[in-house]
């Protein structure tokens, strides 16, 4: 029983890490541009499928490196030519735009790569279990956790120590003032979007190795990512990270005791948080 619980907690942490990567990107874009990027899951799928396509040419490591970057470039283009055109209009339009893009991405990946699930090869030495008793602790899983930690750590560094991060943080508080002070807000929003999409692409590559490749891969993680943001508190990246891990573990544990409720439980948690602490665990009151 202990082992079963440990197994599900480990699983939950890994799924939670995906949610957190997705949610942090979504939250960045939402704070600075006031856009809910419904297409975020679509970008995750693009990252995953690009890695699949690239791996035969550049190997696993090359795919891991290149696919998120290419995804981010697609993100920059989409932002520049489509999403930036609805800034400043009723937020409804940006939601509908990314909603439409989400439809197009999902069917687009189905169109290009087919509806059946595809195998994604991870180096076999990474897939070895590290111990006989805890068979579920494969190297790949630890590697994934480490990589997510590096990505999130890097992001936090960029946000707190670099000029770009400073400008993004200032922009989320008062974009107009930042603009008046001579920062090119268009470029800032574009780069910020690119960072968010890079994280989605990275989550996609990692998910491909863990969950397998299917066109619906993106649609299944986008809603839990919203929940992670709401639970953690919008505007707080630490909170979002915490929210993602929390719902991953909660979902995994519920899977032990009441499997059919493993998806619904995170929404119940969200309701409780909204009831007790409407701004989210680490969010500030009054921002939304």
């Amino acid at each position, binding site marked *: 029983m202990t082992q079963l619980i440990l197994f599900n907690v480990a699983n939950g942490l890994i799924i939670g890490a995906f949610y957190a990567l997705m949610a942090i990107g979504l939250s960045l874009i939402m704070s600075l541009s006031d856009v809910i990027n*419904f297409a975020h899951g679509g970008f995750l799928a693009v990252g995953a499928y690009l890695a699949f396509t690239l791996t035969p040419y550049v190997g696993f490591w090359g795919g891991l490196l290149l696919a998120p970057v290419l995804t981010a470039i697609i993100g920059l283009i989409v932002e520049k030519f489509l999403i930036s055109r609805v800034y400043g209009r009723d937020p409804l339009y940006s*939601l509908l735009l990314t909603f439409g893009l989400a439809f197009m991405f999902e*069917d687009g990946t189905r169109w290009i790569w087919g509806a059946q699930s595809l195998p994604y090869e991870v180096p076999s030495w990474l897939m070895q279990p590290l111990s006989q008793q805890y068979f579920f602790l494969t190297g790949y899983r630890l590697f994934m956790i480490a990589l997510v930690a590096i990505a999130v750590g890097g992001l936090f560094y960029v946000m707190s120590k670099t000029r770009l991060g400073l400008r993004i943080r200032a922009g989320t508080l008062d974009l107009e003032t930042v603009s008046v002070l001579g920062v090119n807000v268009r470029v800032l929003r574009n780069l910020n979007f690119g960072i968010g999409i890079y994280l989605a692409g990275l989550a996609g590559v990692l998910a491909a190795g863990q969950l397998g490749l299917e066109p619906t891969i993106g649609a299944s993680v986008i*809603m839990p990512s919203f929940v992670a943001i709401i639970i953690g508190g919008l505007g707080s990246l630490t909170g979002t990270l915490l929210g993602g891990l929390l719902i991953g573990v909660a979902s995994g544990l519920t899977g032990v005791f009441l499997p059919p409720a493993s998806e619904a439980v995170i929404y119940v948690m*969200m309701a409780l948080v909204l009831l007790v602490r409407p701004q989210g665990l680490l969010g500030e009151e009054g921002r939304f």
Partner: protein
Amino acid sequence: MQAFVKQNALNIVIWALLLTMPFLMNAVGGYTQLGTQVVVLGLAAMALNFLLGHTGVLSFGHAAYFGLGAYGVGLTIRYFEQSTLLGLLAGVVLGAVAAAVIGPLIVRRRGVYFAMVTIAFGQVFYFIAVRWNKVTGGDDGLTNWARHDINLGFTKITLVNEPIHFYYFALFFFAVAVAIMAAILRSPFGRVLLAIRENERRTRFLGINVNFHIWASWLISCTFMALAGALFALQNNFVDPHSLYWTQSGIFVIMCVLGGMRSFWGPLVGAAIYVVLQDYLSSVVSDYWQFFVGLVFVAVVLFFPRGFMGALRRRTAE
């Protein structure tokens, strides 16, 4: 008389079209069920627009209440009572109760954050519908039930295998719901909702409890949404869990925008355009029609943001 006709020209045209729809549809090569779909989804879009267009609150989770209405009627007829009207009532009550309970949790949120919370909450019902296999039929949907004829004592309304009768049955409820919504919007209460849309802060300074009004508007909107969902289920004699899924919520919103959110009849027009377009697309590009639906979303946002009625009004104003 002339002045009356002039003032109500749009209403007269719309009702004339609605009353003759089954015959018009058959004349242009459509079928009666397509007309019923326009009326039912039109009611859903108009119910959503009560909140979206007239109160100015961004809800992206309305499919949940549409679906709850559908499951309410399906479960009632299958497990409890072979009565169409009782099922319809159960569906509406189920949707309304869920909306009333969830409402207080979300009315303090605004803008995109409101949209995100509503759409996330909607997913609870989707997972319940998909996972509670024994009762709801899970992913395959709720089957093995059907609408029944209604016996009013003095006369009997036959609905089974009578698409045209069912069309007028649905139109009756559509008319009642639309009349109630129009009356509410014309009342002082409705004026407050419009005031919230135009300037929320100012409305609050006038001493009006904005959150309560948004909650009430949300409840009214979701209740009629549930009615539309129940009618939709009765039309198909089937409930699909995807009618609860978050993508369906976006489709209701696009109907509102496509037709024109600032016009009372706009969402109905949007629903009509959407239903015809979907019927056409799914026959031409059956496998990837969702891609083209997405393309329609993008095109509407970029090139057609005022919708059909908005463009029409602009043209007549010039």
